């Protein structure tokens, strides 16, 4: 009994120690059309280990779509609509105001309630009560922020999602998973050899990635709730670029086992390998359309790396990029309408670029110049990517209209290869 307790405590202590350097997020640009909103402190939250309203405000702020307004610290805090001075908020041009509170419930739990009001109409837009343990207060705050975000923008919030990324510190590489706000990072893989191309399974329970721990690229799948690697593809030659089908049952991978980098399909258990591209060129970076019908990929079959699309079973590929001599790393928005990729311009700068697939119009999204590995948030509104600033590997995020941006860094480390996880149900 004591041994089991010690083992459990040591496991916790070990994982806490490894992940002690947390992602720091800095908002760089502002957006237009921000929703002016006031979020009051929640009643009785100040003594708890998690200050719920602070997390809600930080989430909304970080999205770039809200302008957080001062609420002051009135005593007592408003507990219902009658206690809110809507006239005052209207004169300050606020669109919405939120109030809430925390109170102890049975079994050491807490009840957390919040309400959101339209300032002009003085109407309640949302009201929810949660029961949560102390450990769940943070998740509850993110759910509240998601609800406010959705009510005010019409889009689903991503504050309850997670991100994965690779941290390099000297010769040590870690694949880390953290909350979307950078909190609570845990290393799921620690290695002395490079880790790249992490991709979440559609249900968010597994991550596939490439590891060079065997002195060659091999694709592994790892369940987040298990502490072992499962080899997906270790054929002769290099194995890389995993991409899940939308139903999570198969992956596309790039293998060189038949000579040259080509795209293959493989079942998630490693069985049933079949080749789906057949060129003498490099075909790589496959990614599925959200309906699973098409694969977008990078190929230099035309003499330079460009983005192509083919049926998911393979077949004739259609070229999509025609500007510039280097267009790579295709990703498709969750609604299937926007292609993002990395384009190198004539000055040798690499920018995350968006293409409207219907109109075929392109837009450079970033002002950073060494962009790689873009990843869509599951609501399609933000692109997370890797870049280099001041010689250090940094993650950055930009809104799909290019207006709001953030930087995510870890002190004294290079961060790269981000992957935004799916919605949590």
């Amino acid at each position, binding site marked *: 009994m004591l041994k089991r307790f*010690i083992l459990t405590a040591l496991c916790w202590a070990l994982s806490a120690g490894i992940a002690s350097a947390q992602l720091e997020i800095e908002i760089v640009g502002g957006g237009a059309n921000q929703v002016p909103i006031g979020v009051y402190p929640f009643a009785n939250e100040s003594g708890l280990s998690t200050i719920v309203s602070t997390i809600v405000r930080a989430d909304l702020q970080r999205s770039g779509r809200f302008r957080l307004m001062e609420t002051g610290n009135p005593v007592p805090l408003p507990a219902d609509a009658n206690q809110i001075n809507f006239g005052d908020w209207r004169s300050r041009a606020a669109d919405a105001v939120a109030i809430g509170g925390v109170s102890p419930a049975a079994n050491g739990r807490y009840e957390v309630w919040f309400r959101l009001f339209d300032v002009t109409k003085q109407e309640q837009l949302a009201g929810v009560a949660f*029961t949560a343990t102390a450990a769940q207060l943070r998740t509850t705050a993110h*759910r509240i922020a998601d609800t406010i975000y959705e009510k005010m923008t019409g889009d689903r919030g991503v504050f309850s999602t997670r991100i994965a990324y690779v941290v390099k510190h000297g010769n040590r590489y870690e694949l880390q998973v953290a909350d979307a706000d950078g909190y*609570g990072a845990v290393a*799921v893989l620690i290695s002395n050899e490079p880790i790249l191309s992490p991709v979440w399974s559609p249900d968010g329970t597994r991550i596939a990635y490439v590891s060079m*721990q065997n002195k060659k690229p091999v694709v592994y799948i790892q369940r987040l709730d298990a502490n072992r690697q499962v080899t997906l593809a270790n054929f002769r*030659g290099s194995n890389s670029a995993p991409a899940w089908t939308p139903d999570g049952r198969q992956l596309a991978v790039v293998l060189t086992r038949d000579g040259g980098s080509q795209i293959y399909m493989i079942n998630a258990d490693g069985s049933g390998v079949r080749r789906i591209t057949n060129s003498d060129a*490099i075909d790589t970076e496959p990614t599925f359309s959200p309906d699973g019908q098409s694969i977008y990929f990078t190929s230099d079959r035309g003499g330079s790396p460009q983005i192509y699309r083919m049926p998911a079973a393979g077949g004739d590929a259609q070229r999509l990029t025609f500007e510039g001599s280097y267009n790579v*790393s295709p990703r498709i928005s969750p609604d299937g309408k926007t292609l993002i990729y990395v384009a190198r311009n004539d000055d040798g700068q690499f920018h995350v670029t968006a293409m409207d697939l219907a109109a075929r119009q392109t837009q450079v999204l970033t002002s950073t110049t060494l962009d790689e*590995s873009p990843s869509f948030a599951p609501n399609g509104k933000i692109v997370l990517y890797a870049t280099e600033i001041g010689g250090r590997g940094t993650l950055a995020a930009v809104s799909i209209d290019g207006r709001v941006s953030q930087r995510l860094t870890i002190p004294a480390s290079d961060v790269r290869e981000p992957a935004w996880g799916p919605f949590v149900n």
Partner: protein
Amino acid sequence: MRLSTILAAASIIAVLGGCSSTPTQEGGAPVQEAKPSTATPGGPTTGTTGRETPNTVDLTKQQPSATGPSELTDPRSPLSRRSVYFDFDKYEVKDEFRSLLQAHATYMSRNRTARMLIQGNCDERGSREYNLALGQRRSDAVKRTLALLGASDAQMESVSLGKEKPRRTGHTEEDFAENRRADMLYNSGNVKEF
């Protein structure tokens, strides 16, 4: 948490055989409208986000491979030279490396149990995955040349490290040139490099 405490904990864990997640976990999401949860309170591995904390796989405790005396590592032998360098944006083996590759191909044809891993690298900026494929072109080119010169295809595996493991991290032309390279690693006799 002090580093020494973490290291002590790590060694104890290694002896005890690794961590597994606490079987009982908190439910992930809070419940609307005060519906009681049926999950029992979780242990320390729940973490402070109220959601299951992912488990860790730590590969850094593995032992490095050892190497004994061999002509493959004797500095007086051309076999100790293992790198083939490439020009910018080029993936063909230059003539100046032919005699080096002949020496390696001859060794392998005389030692049919010898195995070689050829790792290709590139100096490019840009996509990591596309760079893996570019590095693969270089290792494939070396493998093809060795096969033409007498090595058996079955003895060799060509792979790529892309831009992940540059030998030089500077930005001079000399640094870039050093990274446009394929390396030959051996498993043969005393030498176990992969």
